[in-house]
């Protein structure tokens, strides 16, 4: 099978597999939970983790997990990933729409990142006015990074789902790159450059 098809097929597999893993994880480390960090995993479809325990702590400062995310997100986001999977398959089958398939995942991820960060902003700014402990001001947890509230730290980071999504996206980008016939970046194996110059891939464009 030619490389472009293989890359697109592999991308479809990675994108599809990403749905089975959490895309984003938050962990809370607090002095009163030495036994284990509290976790919150965001999947494409849902969220899981120590929700009740997290909210017992959060209730004191007026927050609730998960951050405010419309139910529609858990429908639209996995549907979008499925569309990307189908698109990758179309690319593999037809060798068309290469650039669209390479660009769309970035667009989706940009929307999700923006949406996610906005949700986190709302999470830290719409504090319950009846919260018992009001010594914390409003805050914005970073979508990637650490939030420190006194001796409580929450760590936020992309998880396995995002990694798989990223690999799938990367494969689609490489595929598109190859299809465009552009020179390969520096450091690409010399033989490949030679092959390219000699037009060995010309038929695949």
């Amino acid at each position: 099978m030619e490389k472009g098809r293989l890359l697109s097929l592999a991308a479809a597999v990675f994108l599809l597999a990403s749905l089975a893993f959490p895309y984003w994880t938050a962990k809370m480390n607090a002095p009163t939970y030495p036994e284990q960090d509290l976790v919150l995993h965001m999947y494409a479809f849902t969220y899981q983790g120590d929700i009740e325990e997290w909210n017992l702590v959060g209730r004191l400062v007026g927050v609730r997990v998960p951050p405010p995310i419309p139910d529609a997100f858990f429908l639209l986001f996995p549907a979008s990933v499925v569309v990307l999977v189908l698109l990758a398959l179309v690319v593999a089958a037809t060798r068309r729409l290469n650039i669209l398939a390479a660009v769309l995942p970035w667009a989706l991820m940009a929307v999700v990142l923006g949406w996610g960060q906005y949700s986190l902003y709302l999470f830290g700014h719409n504090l319950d006015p009846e919260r018992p402990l009001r010594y914390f001001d409003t805050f914005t947890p970073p979508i990637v990074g650490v939030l420190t509230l006194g001796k409580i730290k929450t760590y936020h980071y992309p998880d396995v789902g995002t990694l798989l999504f990223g690999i799938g996206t990367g494969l689609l980008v490489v595929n598109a790159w190859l299809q465009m016939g552009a020179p390969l970046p520096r450091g690409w194996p010399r033989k490949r450059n030679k092959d390219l110059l000699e037009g060995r891939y010309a038929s695949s464009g």
Partner: protein
Amino acid sequence: MKALLSPKLVAALLLGLLSGTVLFGLVLGPVVQGAATPPNPYERPYPMPHQFWAQNDEFYVFASGGQQGGLYVYGVPSMKYLSEIPIFVEDQAWGWVAEDTEIREMLTNPWTGKLITRGDTHHPSASKTNGVYDGRWVFINDKQHARIARVDLDTFRTGQILWIPNTTGGVHGFNVGPDTKLAVQNFEHEQYPEEAIRNHLGLDIDPIQGPYVAGVAGIKIADDGTMSNAWQVWGPWHFDMARIGWGTSDGWLITTAYNTERATDPIGMFQRDQDYLFFWNIASIEKAIAEKRYVTTQQAPDVPVVSWKDVEVYVTPIPLNPHGLDISPTGSYILTSGKATTLVVAVDFGKVLQAIQQQKVIGEDYGVKVLDPDAVRAATMDLGMGPTHIEFDDKGYAYVGFFVDSDIKKVPLGGSYQKLHGQTPWKVVDVLPTHYAVGHLVIPGGDTAMPYGKYIISMNKLTKDTFLNHGPLKTENHELFTIGQTPALMVDQMALGPETHYSQALPVSLVKPRVLHSYGDAASLTSRQPSVAYDYDAKEVRVTMSVVRSFFTPGVLTVPQGWTVKARLISGETAMDISHGFALDAYNVTVSMDPGEVRDIEFVADKAGVHWYYCIWFCSELHMEMRGRMVVVPQGEWTPDMETVLPSA
């Protein structure tokens, strides 16, 4: 130069360097290090890192509390007090109170209906498989009220209390068998039993003058740990310590009696020259029951009572007023001590079986054959004043405690144990001074087929001047010795409240306490929703109350004065160490809930007014605010619109 640095030479040098390093590290290193550092069997780092003892303690000790009524728990070698497990005595600190309906049922005498909240725990005995601790349960008896409890080691809570019939109390020796199928409970205090038993024994017993009779209760233990009264054997004597044999002594119940005089006053109990060690063939008891040679009583119509005359039992004389009775790891030696003497006797059970077979008897007492002591003894040792209990280590030594001498004496066992220690048996090889007056001793696994050795703990009856003076009533103490070397070293001690009798020390790896309770099944989770229901016919308020940081739900409960409140309190906590309580102002109600635990309580709301219920554990920074109101409306002022109505979920 080039020739000198040939590859072969370089390789040889490197190999030599490597070998030298390994040799030094494995052989010479420890020697040099040992010479430079004095031996310290109890090294503690400084500063002490967090969790050091959580990670380094090797054994749990479950120590009977005596008049404390439950068990103390601590770690070894840290000697750090961990908890108490209340059993027969109410203890609100550890959440064991009779307001809880399940606990009240356990503490209520099934024959009189009386709630009994006093007790005297004596002899814990851990569950075993093939004679070795298995970490499932610790059983323990209440001397005062003739009860046996099972403590579940997954929750560190009492799971069952079994009441022993046909006795007014005063039980003593208790032991669980090598496979946790059978336990035995001796009746120490003589009884004037029901007529059925008196007639069956055929002894002349005056209710005032005696001489009275006593028995041994056999307790069946099911696979899930449920205990039931299986049988009783009664005879002319009382019975003190008890052990169920294994190995060489498998199938035999061994007991002592210090009052073979059958006296009713202390002086009378010292009048004979010697007392008895008893050997009961357990199969013969079961056979007598199978052949219907038993009676039952009105109190316990389903518990067969067998006469000593209908079973296979033998005695042999032992030093006066025996106290200790312990079996060596292979089940071959029975060591017993005469508390009123300086003697400790080792009975060889192999010789006992031989003497029975060859009828080496020196007479009969109440029809029981008296085995010739010379034919059954391996040794009679004159070791010191006031010998009490005995434990065994993993290297073939016995350790005997001495109340009057205030020490422990280490004695090599004979027979096959000589291969382990290579010493002349039955001679003292070490003396461990204690402070003061040893009662029991415990070596981890020291009463099983597999002692772990390494440590011995002396459970002393007197502390005198050991600690800061704290008034006329002095604490007790436990002293920890390392016994991997001779002489043994006393490395630590702890003050522990009154008054430990025996203890069990189990390896940490065997005990798996849960972080959470999981009372009830998953289906009951649907009933965890808070609710309040008023029953005007029964005059009852039934409430299901959710208890979770930092709220009681319902937070207000209205009750007509004089009504009964039946409350199911449900902890919604799942985090480690987050306990809650429910204490009610002006009412005699205080309960505690472990994480996830469910408590059913019941009381009469007889005092009008606003009564706050509050959490007794400092559960969060909002602990003080974690409270709700029970409003008891005076009689005649109640109207149904005052009912507590919960907002719909």
